[in-house]
């Protein structure tokens, strides 16, 4: 289950130091890597569906994975965890200034208060967008993302075009998403890492004064919580 994710040892690997390994580990690799590389290269062009199926079957046969756990984890990440969670957090922050202050000061506690916690969300940072500052999140090195509030990341977030360009020319990337900010707005790009995950708090749209939290949440898109767009505007009455 995903909960196992919480159990492993966290050492102090920073993003810039992924290759740090102990001596014993290096030795282990020297013994086995050549044979493993040869096998992986020899089967690299077999269709991926067959390679995944074979891996699942062999690990199941060996008792290393439980097929029912596989189905449960698929259901969790496909149907239960997703950006609707994050939208509830943002809607509460828009509706309740005390909650918003809590979210910005102690995001782990404020997010857990709505029932959202778990792997890849252990150390959250909430970033508030304002008229002067717009925040946007990336993981340049891999695909770090706050699973408990946003689910699994979209393909573009994990893609080379986004990872390479958002840190160098964020304004042009935002424009591709239809987000054109005034030149006077500062754009801050936050590079996620193994330990810290970010949630953007988009600006509350105008014309939403009378809306309840459920109606507000419907305006909070996933992309606005990554920071590549702003929140949606309400349909004109």
């Amino acid at each position, binding site marked *: 289950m995903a909960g*196992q994710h919480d159990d*492993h040892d966290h050492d102090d690997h920073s993003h810039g130091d992924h290759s740090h390994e102990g001596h014993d580990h290096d030795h282990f*690799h020297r013994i086995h890597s050549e044979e493993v590389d040869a096998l992986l290269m020899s*089967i690299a062009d077999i269709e991926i569906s067959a390679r995944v199926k074979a891996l699942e079957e062999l*690990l199941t046969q060996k008792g290393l994975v439980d097929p029912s756990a596989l189905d449960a984890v*698929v259901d969790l990440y*496909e149907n239960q965890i997703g950006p609707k969670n994050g939208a509830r957090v943002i809607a509460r922050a828009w509706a309740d200034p005390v909650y918003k202050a809590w979210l910005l000061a102690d995001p782990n506690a404020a997010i857990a208060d709505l029932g959202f916690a778990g792997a890849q969300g252990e150390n959250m940072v909430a970033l508030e967008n304002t008229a002067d500052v717009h925040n946007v999140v990336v993981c340049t090195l891999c695909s770090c993302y706050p699973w408990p509030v946003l689910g*699994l990341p979209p393909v573009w977030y994990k893609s080379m075009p986004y990872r390479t360009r958002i*840190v160098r020319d964020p304004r042009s990337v935002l424009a591709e998403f239809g987000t054109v900010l005034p030149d006077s707005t500062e754009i801050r790009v936050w590079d996620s890492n193994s330990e810290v995950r970010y949630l953007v708090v988009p600006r509350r749209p105008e014309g939403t004064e009378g809306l309840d939290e459920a109606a507000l949440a419907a305006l909070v898109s*996933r992309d606005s919580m990554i920071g590549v767009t702003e929140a949606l505007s309400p349909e004109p009455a």
Partner: protein
Amino acid sequence: MNSVHDCGGFDGFGRVVPAGYDGSEPVFKHEWERRMCALFMVTIGAHYSDDEFRQSRERLEPVTYLTRPYYEQWWFAVARLMMEKGLMTPEEFGRHLAAGRAPSADILAGDA
């Protein structure tokens, strides 16, 4: 490790937003992606750490890293870790894969 995964700031990778993008997409586009993601979720923590997983993905040679889909990169990373940790041998995985694909198992190096 210094390799292509450390890509922040590189030029030339083109557009970010896919054609026709409307702000949503399915969590998985293919059944194999769903199964690979699940295999990762149930083996990380139990058999390898976050950091070992990342490093295993980063050890993909650059052309493979740049050209294979995301969840296929996960397949390489997890398969490598399971073999390097001795939980399955390259020989038995190769044999199992070939058996599941018979009669075209001659693609497998050494079995031709």
